[in-house]
């Protein structure tokens, strides 16, 4: 039930992020969601795309350092306390969240949150136990 996320090392250098996203666009790859973690020296671009394997290859060919990691896409009701409820479940199950980011589903009632856990399997089990909808990879890629 995990989704593949592409992460790219980006130096804090002018135009570097543009070059990265342009490389994807030229290959006809669509970005579903993204987040950029930044420090004073470098950034880590994290992407959910429609074709992860191909995206990884494109980045590697362009000389970027790239990695693929498993993340979990969770459907969250798009209303106050939606995310808080999910986090409470995780907290009760003592599951650590490394990071998360969100994207809003177009014309829908729900938001989708991408979670990076240390232990995805356990996290998925805990969430599903409590009736939280975890999205299949294909569903996310095809959005």
């Amino acid at each position, binding site marked *: 039930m995990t989704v593949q*996320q592409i*992460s790219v*090392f*980006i*130096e804090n250098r002018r135009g*570097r992020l543009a070059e990265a996203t342009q490389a994807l666009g030229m290959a006809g790859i669509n970005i579903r969601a993204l987040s950029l*973690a930044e*420090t004073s*020296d*470098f950034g*880590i671009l*994290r992407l959910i795309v429609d074709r992860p394997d191909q995206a990884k290859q494109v980045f590697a060919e362009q*000389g*970027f*350092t*790239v*990695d693929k*990691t498993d993340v979990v896409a969770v459907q969250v009701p798009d209303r106050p306390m939606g995310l808080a409820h999910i986090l409470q479940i995780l907290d009760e199950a003592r599951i650590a969240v*490394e*990071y998360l980011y969100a994207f809003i589903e177009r014309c829908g009632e729900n938001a989708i949150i991408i979670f*990076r856990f240390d232990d995805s399997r356990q996290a998925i089990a805990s969430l599903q136990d409590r009736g939280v909808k975890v999205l299949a990879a294909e569903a996310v890629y095809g959005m």
Partner: protein
Amino acid sequence: MIWNDEFETLPREALASLQLKRLQHTLERVYARVPFYRQAFDQAGVRPEQIKRLEDLQRLPFTLKQDMRDNYPYGLFAVPLEQIVRLHASSGTTGKPTVVGYTRRDIDNWSELMARSFAAAGVARGDIIHNAYGYGLFTGGLGAHYGAEKLGAAVIPMSGGNTKKQIMIMQDFGSTVITCTPSYSLYLAEAAAEEGLDIRSFALRVGILGAEPWSESIRQEIEQKLNIKAIDIYGLSEILGPGVAIECIEAQNGLHFWEDHFIAEIIDPQSGEVVADGDEGELVITTITKEGIPMIRYRTRDITRLISEPCICGRSHRRLQRMSGRSDDMLIIRGVNVFPSQIESVLMQVEGVEPHYQLVVDREDNLDTLEVQVEVTEDIFSDEVRVLQELSERIRREIKSLLNITCKVRLVEPKTITRSEGKAKRVIDLRKM
């Protein structure tokens, strides 16, 4: 003032014959007592008694820093250990340091040469010498200390660091002479200004500055900012420590090389041949009075030239032009010697780190800075910021603990580090010397 009139103004011919006599004696001793030299001379097919003129020295092989490492710790000593009264070691090496040992007489000679050097810089009895060279394995602190006492001046054994206290002591004790690296002298001036103090109004009048390369424009800046005469001193632990050569305050033009204790040759670093008189090249030094660890044709890697014209100060000893660089890739960062290969070996110890790195040396607020740029390969890359930050912190800590250098580690994308002609350009030195 000339400290030792007899020897410092010895006519050239007398100086040359004294050098030859002392050289022959040294060669006999090392041949008899140091297996390394016996083997090296035998290999070159030269016996000490065949050295009949100073030029014959050129027939002997060079001694390299690596030879000292290979003979660690005491292999090059020419006296039994019970005659050694002091041990020092060089700074900034990953593996074994290079060790030097001094007999009682070596310490006396060193003190004499440092006293001469102080006197040449215009320092005398009655002066208060603020010695900010590091005390310890490094030769700077104790070398200057003994020379100051021999001279009869009052020495304050400050050692390095603790800048605020340095400034307080300097002001309260009325220090008239400062011994430190050129960059530290400028740092002191700025730190004093930050405390609201004008270092120009202190009693300081002379700075004896060395242990790192500097330029004429830095000299002017130091003289202006500290209101002192800035004197260039040269030395290296393999030969003695500080006090191998120094500028005289009269000319401030070239460093008098104490030729009654050392022989200087200038060679082409590629061919190893001695260059024409007055030409630039690598300085090679032979010690001719040292007992503990005599050095025969030691390659200093420092680039300079010999000035033979007589000096207005009256000393007959020839002068070395201010060092203009190195014949190897050694960097001097805040007075600590660093080879890129040492950084490389630290990086190689960190799992996943490729030997793709670059060193950027700069100077901020008059202090040298080192940035180590490390390429992020897939082996070390992570989608978590924390993991990458821990990696750069680990590299920084390792470099600090092994090389005693504070640096900044910057993670960079692969292949952003220029590869030139198959050989990576490892060092970018942005310092304006």
